[in-house]
């Protein structure tokens, strides 16, 4: 029953919650579209998907998806996701987060989940600014970029998130921009299929705040800038660092599957008591040893 202009993924949305709260030109729509595309091509049943998120614009994405979702506290989505996954290892847990949520207030949880290789898929919408609170600098704001809390331009060095999570031990890491929807959905597919900690960074546009403060108000111009300034990692690896200043390195950073923590936890249960982890046991009225 999909009409000509109807999004094929509308079936996955809570239509009674639309319209959404996102600004015109926001990259969140592209991220959600590419997620569903990646999920379908990975042949993952949407009924097995549960989403978690923290606080920020991108953290409002799960609320529109017709699945179980936990919209949690600022920076902590990965910790809730860890519990959900241990509680029911059959669930495919996807964390939607942003640059402030994942890398500032939630930075510690991000690197430890990567270190432990917890089987989660984290999609980080990196728009280089705090959108929900009105345009403050974030840990990924480029040096010299403007924000309400950097009225003279940012004087801080930004995080390189894909490199950070790679160094921390994630088993799948990719970065694309909203100008790369096809590549992005392919990476999301791989991330969902990777049985370990997967991190997909999406460099995304915030025309309302980043654009306004940095004089690129048109979202189409922002996406064009992403496209023109992106260099694939394979090519970038052979280039001088100087020539990469101001460029966005895109592509796959890590794709090295290894045994994840959840599997180890399941194995320990079998080893110690001869049975699989208890699932949905809160509904039982007795617990015999």
């Amino acid at each position, binding site marked *: 029953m999909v009409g000509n202009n109807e999004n094929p993924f509308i079936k996955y949305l*809570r239509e*009674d*919650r639309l319209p959404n709260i996102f600004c015109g030109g926001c990259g969140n729509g592209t991220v959600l579209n590419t997620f569903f595309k990646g999920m379908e091509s990975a042949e993952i049943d949407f*009924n*097995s998907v*549960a989403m*978690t998120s923290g606080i920020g614009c991108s953290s409002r994405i*799960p*609320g529109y998806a*017709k*699945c*179980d*979702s*936990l*919209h*949690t*506290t600022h920076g*902590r989505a990965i*910790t*809730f*996701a*860890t*519990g*959900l*996954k*241990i*509680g*029911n290892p*059959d*669930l495919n847990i996807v964390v939607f987060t942003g640059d402030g949520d994942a890398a500032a207030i939630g930075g*510690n*949880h991000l690197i*430890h989940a990567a270190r432990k290789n917890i089987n989660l898929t984290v999609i980080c919408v990196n728009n280089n600014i705090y959108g929900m609170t009105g345009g403050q600098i974030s840990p990924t704001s480029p040096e010299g970029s403007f924000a309400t809390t950097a009225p003279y331009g940012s004087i801080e060095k930004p995080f390189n998130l894909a490199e950070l999570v790679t160094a921390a031990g994630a088993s799948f890491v990719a970065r694309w921009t909203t100008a790369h929807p096809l590549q992005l959905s392919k990476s999301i597919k791989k991330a969902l299929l990777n049985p370990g900690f997967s991190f997909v960074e999406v460099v995304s546009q915030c025309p309302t705040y980043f654009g306004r403060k940095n004089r690129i108000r048109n979202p189409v111009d922002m996406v064009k800038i992403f496209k023109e300034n992106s260099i694939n990692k394979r090519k970038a690896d052979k280039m001088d660092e100087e020539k990469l200043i101001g460029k966005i390195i895109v592509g796959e950073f890590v794709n090295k599957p290894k045994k994840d*923590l959840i599997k180890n*936890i399941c194995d*320990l*249960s079998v*080893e*110690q*008591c001869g*049975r*699989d*982890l*208890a*699932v*949905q*046991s*809160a*509904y*039982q*009225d*007795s*617990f*015999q*040893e």
Partner: protein
Amino acid sequence: MVKELFVQGNEACAYGAIKAGCKFFGGYPITPSTEVAEKLAELLPKHGGSFIQMEDEIAAIGAIIGASWSGLKTMTSTSGPGFSLMQENIGYAHITETPTVIVNVQRGGPSTGQPTMASQGDMMQIRWGSHGDYEPISLAPSSVQECFDFTVEAFNLSEQYRVPVILATDEIIGHMREKITIPDSVDVIPRTMPKESPDEFSTNNPYLPFKAEENGAPPMAAFGQGYKIPVTGLTHDERGYPDSADFEAHTKLITRLNNKILNNREKIVSVHERFCDDADTIIISYGAPVRSVHRAVVQAREEGLKVGSIKVDTPWPFPEAQILKAAEVAKNLIVVEMNLGQMVYEVERVAGMVGENRPNVHLIPKIGGELHKPEVILSKIKEIS
């Protein structure tokens, strides 16, 4: 088979958790609570459960709330500094109605304070530590056996009312060793499923995960069962959809969350009275100081003084009716607690309800980590008698 063990209070909490059906513990080491985590790291994998040491206390409580939504009974343990870090997510558990249990083995504060010394300095933090209006449930054991019993009870209350329940113990009770009896089985209140299966709902008849019967908690489906539950820390409607700028929606939700505790206060509270019938002076205590109070009361009675005591098992919700009854008959109420005065404010508030004939309320505070000596309590009794 009934088992007898000679263990620490902290270990008794771990045994209680296992008996109540806890299948997941997320924790972070902190003195003087660490033995709870250590024991459960050993026991859980032997019972089809799991243990994870998280990167901090914020992560620990995040993980146990997440696993609770997967359908498990979950717990963490901590002490003052960690309990402070958990406050935001405790509020999240309240507004999302997530059952879980938090053991707070209290130590001297503020800040790092006295890591190895006992305190009851977190009683008001348990009540008010997270922002906003909420009604906590808290249990305070005064023996190692009660660490076991109250942990089981904490799980039952958390499931029944869908709230985080705080076991407010302290370094003395946590590290003290006593003989305990572990019964073959304990009464377990299971989580309630929605009556309808997910496919019975439709656009015209949507699933309302946050619709409750009067004075009760809603049934709680787990993630992965097909109900597709949107859970948010924002003020939400019965569907779970955010409705955060509407004063009526906020008033309705928060009033319901508070009333499900307040309107069931008499079912939740537990106190034990001793010699109160003819008492001029009634001593009120909870947790470790109960032990000194009992000794002092027995001695006072031997000396012919009309003294009774109330042992409060549930500091929160405060046993208002029970303390009011005491305030109506006694001339003096004495609160004995290991802080500079916290629960005494509640006692004063309730005593004030009596009006003109209200009793005098006295406080015997103590900080530094040592238990009150019975003779100190006895001399206070004599001073005011």
